[in-house]
């Protein structure tokens, strides 16, 4: 699951919710889906906290390399 993007995880989660709500599944399948869904939503919630609130300036050096430098603005 670590390799899923938020978008992919969320899409899969939506599928699971719909399947569960459709109510046509075996009990065991339902439970498995439920557990997968819970894991997915926890994963998504963790992803939400990944940003760090940083502001950086991206500059291109003369040799063509890119560099992130601190932004002394605001």
């Amino acid at each position, binding site marked *: 699951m670590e390799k899923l993007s938020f978008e992919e995880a969320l899409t899969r989660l939506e599928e699971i919710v719909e399947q*569960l709500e459709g109510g046509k599944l075996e009990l065991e399948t*339902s439970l498995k889906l439920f557990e997968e869904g819970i894991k997915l939503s926890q994963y998504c919630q963790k992803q939400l906290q990944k940003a760090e609130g940083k502001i*950086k300036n991206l500059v291109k050096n003369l040799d063509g390399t*890119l560099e992130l430098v601190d932004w002394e603005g605001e």
Partner: protein
Amino acid sequence: MQEFLTVSQLNGYIEALLSGDPLLVDLWVKGEISGLKVYQQSGHIYFTLKDRDSAVSCVMFRSRARSLKFRPEEGMEVLLRGYVSVFSRQGRYQLYAQEMQPFGLGGLYLQLEQLKQRLAAAGYFDEGRKKSLPRLVQRVGIVTSRDGAALRDILRVLRQRYQHVDVVLVHSSVQGAEAPRELADGIRILNEYAGVEVIIVGRGGGSLEDLMAFNSEDVVQAIFDSQIPVISAVGHEVDFTLSDLAADIRAATPTQAAQMAVPELMVLEEMLQNMQARMGRALLNTVAWRTEALDRVMMRRVWQESPLIKDSIRSLNELNVRLARAMQDRLGQALKRQEVAGAALGNLSPLRVLERGYALVKAGERLVRDVDRVEPGQVLQVLLHNGELEVEVRSRKKGEHGEVEF
């Protein structure tokens, strides 16, 4: 024998005179285009420039015509820069145009309109190729002036919606001769860096001339080529810029661009919580539906008659109870893990929750969690995010909204 000149000598002499004149070697002339001929093969353009009373032949060679930013048309009023010289073969002087532009602000609009049509025909503005934003954007790229009000507006709104959003800024001038190249470079550099999920390119409002960089082909090309979705955010006094048309999403102002760029963290969190609740309900329904079905089967008389079957039913019932209990345990565990994770999410102080329209109800120092512990007539305190109300209980009704526990 009188002295004489050949025709060539005469024309050569006049040509020398003209090219020695400081005004005629480099001058601007305004006039209306007439008799326009564009030679496809050579690429040279021939026309007559005229006003009400007068006319002069003009030629613009391909090397110069190539850099024209508009398409000359019959009857168009233009401002032309060039020099005057002699066309020896016919013995007449003409204007050799070096550059040319449509005259006046009307000309600017015209130039813009023509560029727009050309880019539209080439598919630069096709809706079909526009990218949509991912639902979670945590890293925003911005190409604008680091000194502009636009940047401050964008940063402020981004923070409001998503406190921890990361920003990667590429500074660029937003007007003047360097602006088109710098803006385009900014978009390209962010693509090369590839660490942002969306790019906002823009500036605050201005006149048509101020916004011209956002009408440049260079910027349109960079937006078109971008692998990352681009939101154009140009404050508007005019209808559009070409950047708006090329961008995946157009915002009317930098503030609006920031609103479009990132989701509200709280909305995403609520959406996830909501999906968890739906899954829990769906699963319980599945269990309940099966239990009912089983009960219906068991109620049939045939099962009630044989002692052997009665025993079986009893043990089946026990199994059933155990199954239900086990199921609830599993559910409970899953939900508890979920709760722990939810609590760890933190950052949702009670006050933030109240801001969303929830209230806390207190009886003195005690938090009210149970309707049974409140009597009609009792005075309670209701805490909202910005103050407290004192209310009197008129009546009590239990379980209207159902139990929340699983």
